[in-house]
């Protein structure tokens, strides 16, 4: 059914008269004049022009700046990840000398270092639940710190916890002095005590033989 057929039907039903009467009623015109609309259009266009770059070179400059920022962010993230994955301890020159001078020939120390390396690698590939279990196991296994680590005095900003899986050092506040474990005078004293006891026992034995 096309437009004319519709119209015919209206004519039949007397609707067109009513339609015509309705058309006589003029809708209330807007209070806003065309000049007002024109003004608002031009204002809107000015705002739009300010928002967008005026020419292609500024678009290129914006794009280049965004690209550079992205690259810089990527490099920074890579560096951060690298540092986070392999914790490093920065040593002062005197400490470094001390560490270098210290003999690293004990089997236990080598074993501990190897365990720590394996532990770090395993931690990187493990889930968080594995890590907590692993931390406990590591704490049981590792025992007291080796002489190599003991002498490293960390700066406050280097304070690292086991939660970050830093196996090579403890915070400086809990650093352990060599004297806590090593007693240089213990051997001579013990020797002297043994000698004293031996001499005492020999004296007693001599006395017994003499008396006998």
């Amino acid at each position, binding site marked *: *059914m096309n*437009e004319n057929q*519709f119209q015919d*039907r*209206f004519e039949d*039903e007397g*609707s067109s008269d*009513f*339609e015509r*009467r*309705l*058309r*006589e*009623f*003029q*809708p*209330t*015109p*807007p*209070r*806003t004049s*065309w000049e*007002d*609309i*024109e003004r*608002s*259009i031009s204002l*809107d*266009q000015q705002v*739009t022009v300010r928002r967008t770059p005026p020419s292609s070179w500024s678009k290129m400059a914006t794009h280049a700046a965004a690209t550079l920022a992205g690259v810089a962010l990527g490099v920074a993230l890579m560096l951060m990840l690298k540092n986070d994955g392999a914790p490093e301890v920065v040593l002062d020159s005197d400490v470094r000398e001390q560490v270098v001078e210290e003999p690293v020939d004990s089997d236990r120390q080598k074993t501990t270092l190897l365990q720590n390396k394996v532990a770090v690698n395993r931690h990187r590939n493990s889930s968080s639940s594995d890590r907590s279990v692993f931390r406990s196991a590591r704490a049981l296994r590792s025992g007291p710190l080796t002489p190599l680590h003991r002498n490293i005095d960390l700066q406050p900003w280097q304070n690292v916890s086991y939660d970050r899986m830093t196996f090579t050092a403890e915070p400086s506040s809990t650093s352990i002095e060599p004297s806590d474990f090593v007693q240089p005078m213990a051997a001579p004293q013990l020797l002297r005590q043994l000698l004293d006891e031996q001499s005492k026992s020999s004296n007693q034995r001599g006395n017994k033989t003499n008396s006998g």
Partner: protein
Amino acid sequence: MPPSPLIAKAICVNEILKRLYEQHAPALLLYARIWCRFPEDALQEAMIELSHQTELPPDPVAWLYQAVRFRAINLHRGEQRRNKREREVALDRTPFFVDAMQYNTDAAELEVAMKALPEDLRGIVVARVWGGLTFEQIGQLNGGSSSGVHRRYHDALVKLKEQISGIPCRGSNNE
């Protein structure tokens, strides 16, 4: 010295917009009134939106009706979010029609009758009677067929007649 092509095009677009506004603004305003209390805002936003178009739409009148409708519905949603007091204060008291005392039915009666119509039927009547849109254009506007639009338009007119005269008409669904 003749103006550059860009300026000439701008002047031409401006003239078209002006003509569209002057010819269709009252009907568009009536159309926007179906959904929101601030129809002038809807109309103004639709005009600005039309000025942003890089190319003039093939049917700018139908495009304007569509834009006004979307804007009016959006404005209505915004209105709903405001509190009751604000709405009451800003209530639009403008009459729908210029008073036409020469006819038996005055504008206020027609306004009441129009308000009694469902929104979709009101939209069809406004677009057809005062907008001058074809049934096909209205069908595209509402997402329906032209025959369906015609049927609903006829029902709307019958209901309007009933409302105004108080006598049920021939062909009314209520009969």
